C-alpha cells in the first residue's frame, strides 16, 4: 500500500477537487457571465469522474487492493455504482438549472462549483471505510447543500429552507458524531474493519448506544421516519434543481453510507440494528404515505414520496444479506430515474408568465393542454406507486423478494399493504391531470434539456427498462458482493 496506489484509487475525487478549485477561480474572474461555461465544464468534470469510476464497477473491484490510505477509503464496485448514480444526478441538476435560475436572474457562477463540491463529498461518503472519512465526506456534502438550499437569496422560502436544513442538519451531524465517539470509545478503532473486529466477541451496552446514535444520525440524512420532519420544508423551499440534487445524489450517498456502516462496521451485529431499520422502514412507508395525502404542493408531495421510497429501500437493508443489498442498489437506480423525471416534469409546469406552477389543483386538466407532459407525469406517478408494468414495480418487487427470501414475510406483507396507502396520493395527481376540468394554467414553453431528460427518464421507467434488467442484475450483484467481501 504505497501512496501512488492510493492516489490512483482516488483519481475521480482528485478530478472533481481540482475541477472545482479551478472553476472557482474562473468564477472569481469571470463572474456570473461565465456561469454557463462553468456549468458545461462542471458537467464535463462529472462525466470524466464517472468514466474514471466505471472500470471498478465493470471489473467488479473488491477486496484489499481497492483500499486506499490505510483503510480510510475504498474504491470498490459498490462505491463505483453509487458514485455513478451520484455524478449522474449532479450532472442532471446542473443541466436543468439554467432554465430555472435565468428567470430570477440568479444563475450565479457559484452554483456549478457548489454542486461539484457536493458531488465530491457525497462520493466520499459511499467510499468511506473509516469514521473520519465518513464525517469529512458528509460535512463536505452538507455544507455545500446548506448553501445550495438557500441559493435563491431573495426568496423567503429558499432562505427558510437553507436555515432549516442547516440547523437540523447540524443537529443530525451532532447526533452522528456522538454515536461515532461512543463507538470509537468502546471499539477502540475508527476504521470499519477495526470496529467490526472488536465486536466479534459481542456487544457492550456502550457500543449499542453508539450504534443507535449512528443510525439515528444517518436516518436524518436519508430522511427516514421518525427523523424526516425537515424534508417537506426543505424540498419545497429549495430551488427545484437543488431539490433534485437533494432527492437523488444526496439521498443515494446517504443510503450508500448507511449500507457501508451497517454491513462493514456493524455487519456481525445485524441483530442489534435490524429492529431499528425495520421500524424506520415501516414508519417511513406509513408516514410518507399518510403525510402526502393532504398536500397540494407537488414538491412537498414528492418529499413525502421520497420518505416513502426510502422506507422501501430500507426493507432491503433490514434483510441484511447480499440479496437485500443488491435489491436496494437496484431500487436506488430506479428511484433516481423516477425522481429526476418527477422534478424535471415539475420544472416544466409553468404558467403564461413563466412562473412555476407547484399547486396540484392548478394542474387540473393538464392532459388536454400538454398531453405529452401529462403522460410523463402519469407514468412517473404510477411507477412511484409501483404498478406493473412500469419499472418502479420491479424495484419494489426485488426488495420484497429479498425480504421474503430472507424470511421476513411479515415485514414484506405489512410493507406491501402500506404501499396501497401510497398509491392513493399518486392516483390523486393522475386524477387531477386527467379527470378534472381543464384549468388551463400550464402554458409556458419548455427548455430543450428538460424535455430531453424527461424523455430519457420516462423511457427508463417504461416497460422498456426491463430490457436493461440482465445488465443491471449483474451490476447490482457485483456491487453488493464488493460490499460484503470485507466480511
Amino acid at each position, binding site marked *: 500500500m504505497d501512496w501512488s496506489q492510493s492516489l490512483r484509487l482516488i483519481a475521480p475525487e482528485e478530478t472533481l477537487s481540482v475541477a472545482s478549485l479551478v472553476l472557482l477561480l474562473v468564477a472569481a474572474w469571470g463572474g456570473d457571465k461565465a456561469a454557463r461555461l462553468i456549468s458545461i465544464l462542471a458537467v464535463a468534470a462529472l462525466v470524466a469522474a464517472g468514466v474514471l469510476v466505471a472500470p471498478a464497477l465493470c471489473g467488479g473491484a473488491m477486496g484489499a487492493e481497492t483500499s486506499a490510505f490505510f483503510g480510510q477509503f475504498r474504491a470498490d464496485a459498490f462505491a463505483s455504482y453509487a458514485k455513478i448514480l451520484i455524478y449522474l444526478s449532479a450532472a442532471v441538476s446542473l443541466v436543468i438549472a439554467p432554465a430555472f435560475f435565468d428567470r430570477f436572474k440568479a444563475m450565479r457562477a457559484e452554483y456549478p462549483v457548489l454542486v461539484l463540491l457536493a458531488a465530491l463529498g457525497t462520493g466520499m461518503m459511499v467510499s468511506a471505510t473509516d469514521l473520519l472519512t465518513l464525517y469529512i465526506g458528509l460535512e463536505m456534502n452538507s455544507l455545500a447543500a446548506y448553501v445550495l438550499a438557500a441559493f435563491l437569496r431573495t426568496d423567503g422560502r429558499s432562505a427558510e429552507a437553507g436555515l432549516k436544513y442547516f440547523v437540523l442538519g447540524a443537529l443530525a451531524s451532532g447526533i452522528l458524531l456522538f454515536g461515532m465517539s461512543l463507538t470509537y470509545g468502546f471499539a477502540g478503532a475508527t476504521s470499519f474493519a477495526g470496529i467490526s473486529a472488536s465486536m466479534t466477541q459481542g456487544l457492550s451496552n456502550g457500543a449499542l448506544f453508539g450504534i443507535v446514535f449512528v443510525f439515528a444520525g444517518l436516518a436524518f440524512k436519508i430522511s427516514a421516519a421518525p427523523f424526516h420532519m425537515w424534508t417537506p420544508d426543505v424540498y419545497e423551499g429549495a430551488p427545484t434543481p437543488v431539490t433534485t440534487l437533494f432527492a437523488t445524489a444526496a439521498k443515494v450517498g446517504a443510503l450508500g453510507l448507511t449500507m457501508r456502516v451497517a454491513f462493514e462496521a456493524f455487519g456481525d451485529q445485524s441483530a442489534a440494528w435490524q429492529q431499528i431499520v425495520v421500524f424506520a422502514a415501516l414508519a417511513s412507508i406509513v408516514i410518507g404515505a399518510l403525510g402526502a395525502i393532504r398536500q397540494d404542493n407537488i414538491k412537498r408531495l414528492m418529499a413525502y414520496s421520497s420518505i416513502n421510497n426510502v422506507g422501501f429501500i430500507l426493507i432491503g437493508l433490514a434483510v441484511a444479506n447480499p440479496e437485500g443489498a443488491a435489491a436496494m442498489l437496484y431500487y436506488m437506480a430506479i428511484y433516481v430515474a423516477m425522481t429526476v423525471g418527477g422534478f424535471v416534469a415539475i420544472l416544466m409546469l409553468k404558467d403564461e408568465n413563466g412562473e412555476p406552477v407547484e399547486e396540484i389543483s392548478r394542474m387540473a386538466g393538464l392532459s388536454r393542454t400538454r398531453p405529452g407532459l401529462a403522460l410523463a407525469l402519469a407514468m412517473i406517478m*404510477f411507477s412511484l406507486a409501483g*404498478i*406493473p*408494468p412500469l419499472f418502479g*414495480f420491479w424495484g419494489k*418487487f426485488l426488495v*420484497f*423478494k429479498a425480504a*421474503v*427470501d430472507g424470511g421476513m*414475510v411479515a415485514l*414484506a*406483507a405489512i410493507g*406491501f*399493504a402500506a*404501499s*396501497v396507502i401510497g*398509491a*392513493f396520493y399518486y*392516483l390523486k395527481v*393522475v*386524477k387531477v391531470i*386527467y*379527470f378534472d376540468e381543464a384549468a388551463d394554467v400550464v402554458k409556458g414553453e419548455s427548455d430543450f434539456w428538460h424535455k430531453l431528460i424527461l424523455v430519457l427518464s420516462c423511457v427508463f421507467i417504461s416497460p422498456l427498462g*426491463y430490457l436493461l*434488467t*440482465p445488465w443491471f*442484475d449483474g451490476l447490482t450483484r457485483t456491487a453488493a458482493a464488493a460490499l460484503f467481501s470485507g466480511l
Partner: protein
Amino acid sequence: MSGFPILSLMLLVPLAAALACLYLDAKSARTVALLATLANLALGVVLWLNFDVGGAQWQFQERHELFSGFSYALGIDGIALLLIELSVFLMPICIGASWNSIEKRVGEYMAAFLLVETLMIGVFAAQDIFLFYMFFEAGLIPMYLIIGIWGGADRIYASYKFFLYTLLGSVLMLVAMLWMVHTAGTTYVPTLMAYDFDPQVQTWLWLAFFASFAVKMPMWPVHTWLPAAHVQAPTAGSVILAGVLLKMGGYGFIRFSLPMFPEASAYFAPLVWGLSMAAVVITSLIALVQDDMKKLIAYSSVAHMAIVTIGLFAFNVQGLEGSMLVMLSHGLVSGALFLCVGIIYDRLHTREIARYGGLAINMPRYALFFLLFTMASIGLPGTSGFVGEFLSLGGIYQVSSWAALICTTGIILGAAYMLYLYRRVVFGDQKNADAAAMADLDLREYLMVIPLGLAVLWMGVYPESFIAPMRADIAALDARLARAKPQGDPKLVMGKEKPAHEEAAHEGAH
C-alpha cells in the same frame, strides 16, 4: 401451426394498435381499433380451430428465459382457451358500442381499450406466475383511466374505489407468490400447480390469493366497488368489466387457489359457501330494489359470480364445469345486458328505469333481443345461463345440500328482478314522450346484438362445444382435488335401476 407464436401475436396486435391510436384522430382511431380487434378475433378463431381437443394439456407454448428466474412463458389449456375466446369475441363489440357515444379523446380511449385487451389475453395465457401478476395488475391502469375519464357523474369516487380495492387485494397475493417461488424454486405455473405445499402454510397462501381474487371476482362483502365502477363506466367499459375482467377472479381460483392449495381450499370451502350464499340472497334482494338499470345488472353480476364460486368449491367435475360455463355465459349475457342498457342510454341519456316504459311499442326488435338476454340471465333452458347454473348447483348439491338450497333461490330471485326490470322498461304504457319517440335498433346495433344472441343460444343448445376443450383439464383438476374433497352431507347413493317392465308400465300410464 406448432412453433408459430400465435399467443404473442395476439398480444402484439392490440398493443401495436393501442400505440397507433394514441397518435391518430378520432375517426381513424376508431377504424384502427375495430380492425385490430377483428384481427384478434380472427386469430382467436384460428387458435380455437388449431386447439387439439384431448391433446396435450398445455398447447401453443412459448418460453423464453429472461432474468432472475423470470421468464416469458405463454401457453394455454382448455380453460384459458375459452376465456381468451370470450375476450376476443367481446372486444369488437365493445369498440362498436363506443363508436358514437365516445366523443372526447377518442384516440386515448381506444388505446386504453386495446391495452386492456392485451392484458386480459396475457392474464389467461401467462404461464409464469410473475408474468401473470404483471398482466393481472397492469390492467388497473387502463381501467382506472377508462372509468375516471369517460365515466359518468360520480366517476372519480368509483375509479378510486376500483383501484385501491383491487390493489390491496393483489399486493398480498404478490407476497404469497414470492414465498411460493422461494419455496418451490420455480415460477412456472404448471410445475407450481403440481407442487405440494405444506398444508399449514397453504392456509396463509390461500388467504393471500383469496384477498385478491375475492375482490376481483367480486365476492360479497368486498363487491361494493363493482356497482360503483359499473354505473360510472361507459357502456363498453361495463361490458368488458362484467364480461371479462370479473372472470379473472374465477380464473385465478381455478388456476391457482384450487390446484395449488387443495387442502386449504377444502378447509376454507365452508367460508366460500357461506359468502356465496350470502351474496346470492343479499345482492339479489338489493338488485330487486334498484331504480338504476346498470346498478341492477351489476348486482345481478355479483349474484351470478357467487354461483361460480359455489361451483368451484364443490370439488367435483359438475361443479367445476358448471362454474366455467357460468363464467362464459355471464360474460356474454351481462355484456349483452349492459349493451342493451347502453343502447337506450345513448338515446335518452339516463339509466333511470322509471324514465322508460312501453318500449315494446316503439322498439319491438330491441325488445326481442332484450328479452332473449333477460331470459338467458334468468337461466331459461335453451339459453346459455341454464346449463352452467344447473351444473354448478348440481355440483354443490353433492357436497352441501344447504348451500345448494339457498343458492337456488338466486334463480328465483333472479327471475324476479330481471322480469320486473323488463316489465318496467319494455312493457306497460309509454309514460314519457321522449322515450316513446326513440328509434329502434340501427345497423351498428344489430351487428353487436346478433352475434351475442347467437352465441347465447349456441351455448344453451349445444354446450358440448364449450365443454369439450376443457373436459380433460377439469378432470385433471378434479383428480388433483380428490385427496382433499370434503365429505358431502347428502350422502348420495346410486339408485337401483328399476326393472324394465315397471318403467314400461309407467310410460303406458301417460
